[in-house]
């Protein structure tokens, strides 16, 4: 994307090309397989080479997410809200880069790409606000026929594999990742295969916005390489199949694999939803386990 300029000595300056890498455990490794793939823009013109994640990258990502889970879920909801809000702040700071990435990836004009980025940032702020409110809405005191306090509280389910939407490379990505982490889960995300660049930029934002390493891990590449391994992985607690929208056979195979350890599954929609609509609380509550405590009332 960079253009040739001249240096003070008059010689042509060489482009500094960026290597688009994975994001695992707070670091940016290349794929373990050493493979990369060509990413084109919406018009089919070459954009970049991105890392092609392999099953072993998926395995490493799950390990990193599992390691990060106790620390992240143990933070106060208020602190998680602050951090998710911080992601929005840093995204705002890098707005031009995101607008550019969305524009070339999704083939939008600059004005529409700008609106998409605004919506993505607003969505993060919106989900950040939910961090310390979801317990009050979903949990509560239950009336029981006995001398007990009976209290239900939602807790994060654990490591969640997320197949991010294929079409909406930034707004869709943020809309599926934010609700998973804001409640205390950690995530392994397979980005859009054809439009991974906004996801890589988003990973760079995560790395610089106080999100502990491993809380979000982002794998670029074809879903077929990683999703089946994540779906069958016994140490993954839930899977969001949004990215398999429009491919019911593939989604069914993933659901079957996920059944082995009774993962929570958010099923693939028939078609990718319109991400600009009000998201509701569905995605927030999908990946929670309700813990109910009976406590005797003092006589």
């Amino acid at each position, binding site marked *: 994307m960079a253009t040739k300029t001249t240096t003070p000595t008059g010689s042509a300056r060489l482009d500094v090309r960026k290597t688009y890498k994975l994001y695992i455990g707070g670091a940016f490794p290349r794929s373990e397989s050493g493979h990369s793939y060509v990413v084109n823009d919406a018009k089919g013109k070459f954009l970049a080479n991105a890392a092609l994640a392999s099953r072993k990258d998926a*395995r490493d990502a799950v390990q990193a997410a599992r390691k990060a889970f106790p620390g992240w879920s143990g933070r106060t909801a208020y602190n998680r809200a602050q951090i998710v809000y911080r992601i929005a702040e840093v995204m705002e700071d890098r707005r031009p880069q995101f607008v550019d990435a969305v524009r070339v990836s999704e083939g939008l004009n600059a004005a529409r790409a700008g609106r998409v980025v605004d919506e993505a940032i607003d969505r993060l702020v919106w989900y950040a606000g939910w961090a310390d409110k979801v317990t009050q809405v979903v949990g509560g005191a239950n009336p029981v026929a006995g001398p007990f306090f009976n209290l239900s509280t939602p807790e994060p389910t654990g490591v969640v594999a997320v197949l991010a939407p294929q079409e909406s490379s930034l707004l869709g990505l943020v809309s599926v990742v934010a609700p998973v982490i804001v409640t205390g889960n950690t995530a392994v995300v397979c980005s859009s295969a054809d439009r991974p660049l906004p996801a890589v930029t988003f990973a760079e934002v995560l790395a610089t916005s106080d999100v502990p390493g491993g809380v979000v891990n982002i794998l670029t590449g074809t879903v077929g390489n990683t999703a089946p*391994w994540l779906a*069958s992985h*016994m*140490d993954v607690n839930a899977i969001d199949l949004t990215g398999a929208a429009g491919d019911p056979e593939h989604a069914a195979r993933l659901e079957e694999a996920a059944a082995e350890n009774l993962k929570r599954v958010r099923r693939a929609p028939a078609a990718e939803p319109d991400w600009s609509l009000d998201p509701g609380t569905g995605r927030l509550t999908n990946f929670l386990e309700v813990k109910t405590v009976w406590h005797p009332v003092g006589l």
Partner: protein
Amino acid sequence: MTPTSTTASASSAAAGGFDDVTASESSLRRFLHGLPGVDQVGAEARAASLGTRSIKTTAKAYAIDLAIRMVDLTTLEGQDTPGKVRALASKAMRPDPADPSCPPAAAVCVYPDMVGVAKETLGSSGVNVAAVATAFPSGRAALDIKLADTRDAVEAGADEIDMVIDRGAFLSGRYLQVFEEIVAVREACGPAHLKVIFETGELQTYDNVRRASWLAMMAGGHFIKTSTGKVQPAATLPVTMIMLEAVRDFRAATGQMVGVKPAGGIRSSKDAIKYLVTVNEVAGPDWLDPDWFRFGASTLLNDLLMQRTKMTTGRYSGPDYFTLD
């Protein structure tokens, strides 16, 4: 391995052919310092290159099962309880209760006071009980206390004794004292096998590791073992490789085989397979047997089991499905 008879005297317990070497402090020192020096850069490069071998599919399955059979499942904590030792012993007999084809571990390694509990649980399962003795892990006690510690563990039913050498004496050059101590402990072991721990993390140089290896082998140790697991660095691949070279050269010189046990710091199947490759390449396939090579480990076993499960089921397993220990 043939256990020596309980009546063997100290001198005959020691390997033959070295009587003149071990006759005096000065001859022993001359011999140990006359051993060829270890090329540190070369040894590390060689070990690193052995660690790059790719072991896949059926070879990997074989290596994992072999590694499981070689594990000395270890718990050496002040907080050990009989319940913990019983749980560990059960795990050693049936590492993966969900899969009867999974082989048992080689031994359970505990402090001497837990030997009885371990023995009671293991019974005649074929899994040995190893006890650390001789004022483990520092080895700082008078000889008669160390010998009493050893006899105590053997009487309680230990099949193997893991002794520590006196690193202070070794590093200050009193080799004969270390030698005689090993001989005395070997005698106190009776029918039990003796593993000699060097604590290579405290020996400073690879040359010292080679010297300690020869010293222990000449004194009649059945196994030489890298470390207690209480000092960092514990087992490393270059150190283990140097010890494997020593046992190989010792067999070439005397015809007697001595086992090797790296302990501490080996946590993943990948690491374990690197060690097995090194055993095969350096000492030879004769040592690829639980009688001649062991892993002192606790967390390694779970990783081996997870890899084993991955290979049989085709999906990644998780720590939720194996015991905590």
